[in-house]
């Protein structure tokens, strides 16, 4: 079923169209939400909330931009609201310091010190045991991405999973394109540092 038709049907209040749209996008929405909130249950909750918002606000989607751009703007904002409500505060200063650090270790320790609570804590234990896990590239990559700042994680996810362009990501995150490019570059650099602790890049490729 064409996405355009599904949107028209949804605008007429057809719930089966929402189900079809969910089937198309739910894994992507969940993946992005998971990068931001770092826990499975809240990410699932957010995924549901996002599609409820889509159902309620579909008439405000004017088709000037791609549906997915509109959808992921909702995802990003819903996640930000969730983080605000849970007071998972990545303060401006901690973020800036994190983004300016070239060494991922130093940025991570900075975040750990400044955050009152980190949902990533549960991952830190697991990441140490990554070599004992089965050599699963997807799992390794996702766990490594989860060690980046949530902005870098989201940018990488949107760029590589959803295949958004830099300008589309800039629209979703309301951030200048050059900042997105810089974050993408630093995100890859940080990821390389994380991965090189345990593997060589050739080994993974």
């Amino acid at each position, binding site marked *: 079923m064409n996405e355009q038709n599904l949107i028209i049907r949804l605008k007429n*209040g057809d*719930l089966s169209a*929402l*189900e079809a749209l*969910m*089937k198309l996008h*739910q*894994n*992507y*929405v*969940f*993946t992005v939400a*998971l990068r931001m909130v770092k826990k499975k249950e809240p990410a*699932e909750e957010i*995924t*549901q909330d996002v*599609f*409820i918002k889509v*159902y*309620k606000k579909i008439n405000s989607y004017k088709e000037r931009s791609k549906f997915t751009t509109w959808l992921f703007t909702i995802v990003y904002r819903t996640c930000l609201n969730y983080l605000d409500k849970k007071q998972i505060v990545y303060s401006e200063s901690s973020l800036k310091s994190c983004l300016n650090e070239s060494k991922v270790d130093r940025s991570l320790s900075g975040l750990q010190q400044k955050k009152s609570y980190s949902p990533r804590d549960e991952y830190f234990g697991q990441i140490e045991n990554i070599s004992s896990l089965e050599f699963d*590239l*997807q799992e390794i*990559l*996702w766990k490594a991405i989860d060690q980046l700042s949530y902005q870098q994680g989201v940018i*990488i*996810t949107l*760029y*590589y*999973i959803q295949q958004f362009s*830099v300008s589309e990501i800039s629209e979703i995150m309301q951030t200048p394109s*050059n900042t997105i*490019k*810089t974050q*993408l*570059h*630093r995100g*890859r*650099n940080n*990821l*390389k540092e994380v*991965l090189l602790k345990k593997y060589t*890049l*050739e080994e*993974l*490729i």
Partner: protein
Amino acid sequence: MTEHLNELEIEKYIEKGRNALSSTKALHLEGCEKCRKLIEEQLQVHSLLKKLQPQKVAKNLFQQMQNKLSIMPQKVKKDWTFVIALILLLFIGVSILVTKQTPESAIKQKQNIELPDLLQENIQKVNWEEILKQTYSWFNMYLLKFLLENKNLVLIFFSLFVIMFYHLVDKRYAKYLFK
């Protein structure tokens, strides 16, 4: 030797290839091992990330969401039948009024129009109190006569009122009435 490639230039290279660089930067890249290594590493991570697949969500997510939706108040859809009914009723009402005006009634109307001139001439002699009483009784009489003569029109306006009232009730209280 020119400056090393900055983050944005490396990003441009990764996105669009060597041609995206200016000739000076391309020349620099040929001679600079550090920049070449940086780009190579970025390209390796880039090709690794291209293999990423989305993580899978619980299959019954839509069902769970439906439960949430059923708790929420239903969307009140825009209903244009009200507007169409209104236009239709007005059209019928006006049509009835127009068709009721026979040539005789039109002549009578013309004669009535001359009445203000007569009043104008005798305006000083008029007993206003008497006129008001007369007008009031005429009004009542004509209203009653009008209502009796135009039963259809009265019926139409009554229906119109019912529709408007229903629409108002439906819009405000439908969510409570039809849960």
